[in-house]
């Protein structure tokens, strides 16, 4: 029994690694993608748009398989599954975050930029002190939904053989002929998402001081 719990704990750690690494890379990267999507340079806009369409238009499970196996079929090179898993998650989530950022940025009235310009704020000051705080408030609910989805999506990493929590639970449950391990995994996902949604609610509340 302790052996099973230890295994599940290890799986949990892997799931959490996928979760946090994906966020660390894709939250900022999504911003770069959003900028590309909104640039005046048509070719860049077209490419980023195509990338976003592909990421949103195909299953993540397929993207995982592609990212892991494509280098092998193309160059005969194989690499670490965990790395492949992080890359697939990051490029997928960057696309989703980019669309959230874009809608947030576009919802800011252009009068905000104009007032800032006339008052003499630099472009970077305007962005970080005037625009970004308002964008964060606007996108927090959508971001929360996406992060909750990410928690559940980490289970897909097993497709390419990463031993995350759900794979460990499934293997264990067929070994001990019991669904208990899977049920334990379910509790983990629930708790994790409970924390995530509490954090986002707290964030929304904190930014609720203005309209």
């Amino acid at each position, binding site marked *: 029994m302790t052996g099973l719990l230890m295994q599940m704990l290890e799986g949990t750690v892997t799931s959490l690694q996928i979760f946090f690494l994906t966020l660390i890379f894709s939250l900022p990267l999504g911003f770069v993608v959003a900028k590309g999507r909104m640039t005046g340079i048509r070719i860049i806009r077209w490419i980023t748009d195509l990338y976003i369409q592909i990421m949103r238009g195909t299953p993540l499970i397929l993207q995982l398989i592609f990212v892991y196996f494509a280098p092998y079929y193309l160059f005969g090179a194989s690499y670490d599954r965990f790395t492949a898993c992080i890359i697939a998650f990051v490029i997928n989530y960057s696309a989703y975050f980019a669309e959230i950022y874009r809608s947030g940025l576009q919802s800011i009235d252009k009068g905000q930029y104009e007032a800032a310009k006339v008052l*003499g704020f630099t472009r970077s000051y305007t962005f970080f002190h005037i625009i970004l705080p308002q964008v964060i408030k606007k996108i927090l609910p959508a971001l929360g939904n996406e992060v909750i989805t990410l928690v559940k999506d980490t289970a897909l990493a097993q497709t390419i053989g990463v031993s995350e929590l759900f794979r460990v639970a499934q293997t264990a449950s067929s070994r001990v002929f019991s669904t208990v391990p899977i049920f334990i995994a379910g509790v983990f996902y629930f708790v994790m998402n409970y924390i995530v949604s509490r954090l986002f609610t707290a964030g929304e509340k904190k930014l609720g001081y203005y309209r």
Partner: protein
Amino acid sequence: MKEMIRLENLSKSFSGIEVIKNISFTLTEGEVLSIIGPSGSGKSTMLRIITQLERADNGTLTVDGLTMFRSVDGKAVYSKPDELRAIGLKMGLVFQSFNLFPHLSVLRNITEAQRAVLKRDKAEAEEKAMSLLKKMGIEDKAGQYPFQLSGGQQQRVSIARALALDPEVLLFDEPTSALDPELTREILKVIRELAEEKMTMAVVTHEMHFARAISDYAIFMDNGVIAEEGAPDELFGNPKEERTRKFIASFEE
């Protein structure tokens, strides 16, 4: 008397359509210029060029002796960025839609640029902000957020925000068009007081009586040109052009 703004032969097109055609005027220090004209006649575009929110196609503009752009071979050639910045700091603009920063308190709306742009320290910036809020009659609103204020109060905050940077010229683009008549009166009173203090101002407005009363010079714009200009009593009381007469008459009940 010093010329604060000297604009010569300004022209500007949007996608091939000329919306400002060869406009010139001067604004003398301590005076008030009122600009009237139908919607779409180019009033906002002109103010936006003067405040560098839009670029001129051709013409020459000097502000307090500094050149923002000058006409060279039929094109407006802009000065260097630091010169443009210096000119920008001489100018304040009050928008029709206030454009206050919703996430900042009233006080911080007024101190933010003082601190970030003029590098004033916190105490000095707040003292300045409080004295301006007092002047606007809303010092009790310092800790509130823009959404908690009436339109008239918001516009007073935005005037205070502009004044906090000690501009040489204050420009208004239809400052009361988003307000109902009672709130309009509040704002007109504030602008009138500024005029009495000899603040140099250019005001785009549809308030004809107000414009006539406060301005030293008036311009009627129509279709991208100055159709008529002159002393307010002449322009409002005895317009020479048929279209000026019609426009002004359309505001009488």
